[in-house]
């Protein structure tokens, strides 16, 4: 279990996130939802070890009782943009994280290439990111994140740049990948629909300063998450977000 305790984030002139604690459970998707500027991405970035310049933070994190010092191999981070390097082929991009862990180029490629088929990228190994569609690029970015085999994934609005249809398809696709190899996921989003489809648990953040105001478990199994089944949760979320957004 990943435990984050009393994380406080400050900008030069204000408190951005007041002391905040949360836990990530292996095999569960936890969505962090809230209005823009509430600090949800900053929480994620602190865990990833890439807090924006100009922000300072205090807090503790531990994985299964062991203190965690970000950035840590226990966490794989995927930012909002796919950040595939345009000068690398898709296979080189996908293997980048593995190479940074000390694996040789050849060994990293050997680990990555067999996964292309399962990620819907067969035949794209030696193409450049600019030759792929938005959805394929995002799958390549997921491949780069997931191949690291970190027990926890930090996903910062990974579907926000995609069109509606691609986003829905990719959400289902990601859930299928997570079902194959369960991990603890912290997914930042501002999309109610996405949160209720993907999450096992939803943490609602309010702004000014950022704080968690609700912790909503979703007990309905995913195959049964119809519009009707989720309507109540969405209505609750909507009113919570409207109340807490100035």
């Amino acid at each position, binding site marked *: 279990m990943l435990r984050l305790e009393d994380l406080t984030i400050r900008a030069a002139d204000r408190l951005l996130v007041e002391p905040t604690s949360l836990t990530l459970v292996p095999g569960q998707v936890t969505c962090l939802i809230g209005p823009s500027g509430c600090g949800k991405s900053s929480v994620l*970035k602190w865990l*990833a*070890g*890439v807090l*924006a310049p100009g922000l300072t933070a205090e807090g503790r994190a531990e994985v299964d009782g062991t203190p965690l010092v970000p*950035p840590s*191999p226990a*966490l*794989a*981070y995927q*930012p*909002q*943009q*796919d*950040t*595939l*390097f*345009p*000068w*690398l082929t898709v296979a080189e991009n996908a293997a*980048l*994280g593995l190479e*940074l*862990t000390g694996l040789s180029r050849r060994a990293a490629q050997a680990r990555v290439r067999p996964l292309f088929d399962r990620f819907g990228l067969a035949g794209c190994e030696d193409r*450049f*990111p*600019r030759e792929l569609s938005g959805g394929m*690029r995002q799958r390549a970015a997921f491949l780069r994140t997931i191949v*690291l085999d970190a027990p926890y994934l*930090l996903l910062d609005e990974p579907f926000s740049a995609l069109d509606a249809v691609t986003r829905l398809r990719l959400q289902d696709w990601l859930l299928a990948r997570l079902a194959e190899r369960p991990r603890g996921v912290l997914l930042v989003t501002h999309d109610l629909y996405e949160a209720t489809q993907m999450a096992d648990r939803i943490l609602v953040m309010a702004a000014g300063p950022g704080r968690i105001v609700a912790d909503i478990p979703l007990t309905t199994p995913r195959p049964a998450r119809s519009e009707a089944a989720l309507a109540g949760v969405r209505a609750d979320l909507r009113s919570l977000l409207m109340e807490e957004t100035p």
Partner: protein
Amino acid sequence: MSVLRQLLPAFFLAAALLALWQGYCAWADVSPLILPAPSDVARGLWVNRADLARHAGATLLVAGLGFSLSVAFAFASSVALWFLPALRRGVLPLMVASQTVPIVALAPLMVLWFGFGLLPKILLVILVTFFPMLVSLLSGYARLPQAYHDQLVSMGAGRGALFRRAALPVARPQFFAGLRISATYAIVATIFAEYAGARQGLGIWILTAKNNFRADLVLSAVVLSAFLTLSLLGLLHLIDRLTGRRFRGGDDAAA
């Protein structure tokens, strides 16, 4: 083919200007001592082709050596300054100040200090071409998108990996822009250095021709120096094309 098509307008414009120049010289009956016609310049080039080739070779040698060393020094310095930001804050203002020293003043001093050999000329070329390349490289490194930085750091990259994996590739266009600017300065700086004192080179050719009131020969050397500069730029363009397949048509999502 497309390169030829791109060059056609410039070619036609140059041809028109030369025709205008030739026509003006014939119409106004200007003395060739003051303004030789393009045909006089061409004749000067052809008649003195062996001498000019020898002098151009000497200029090219100095410019090539100086430029190559300058590229190496600029790259090494940029790497050092990337890894030592405190050093950058100290060194950059001095470098900017060094660029305010006029080359006209520096060239004779170099000859005075280091004699008439290759060294003063090469040093002068380095002094003139080093700064644009260094600044281009540093501004290229500074263009590293925060998203790329964050992605690499979150995967455990240290400063070395950040540099090699992202800052260096991101800086490639600026590096080539700096190379092109410096290449145009290299030949001019060499000619200046030769002008201040040399046994061979287009600079000393120009000085001798000027002292003999041979404007046609001065302009012949100018044409040749332009040709050398354009050749150097062409070579850089070729290197860019041959080594830049990965960087062409780049769709930089995070920029």
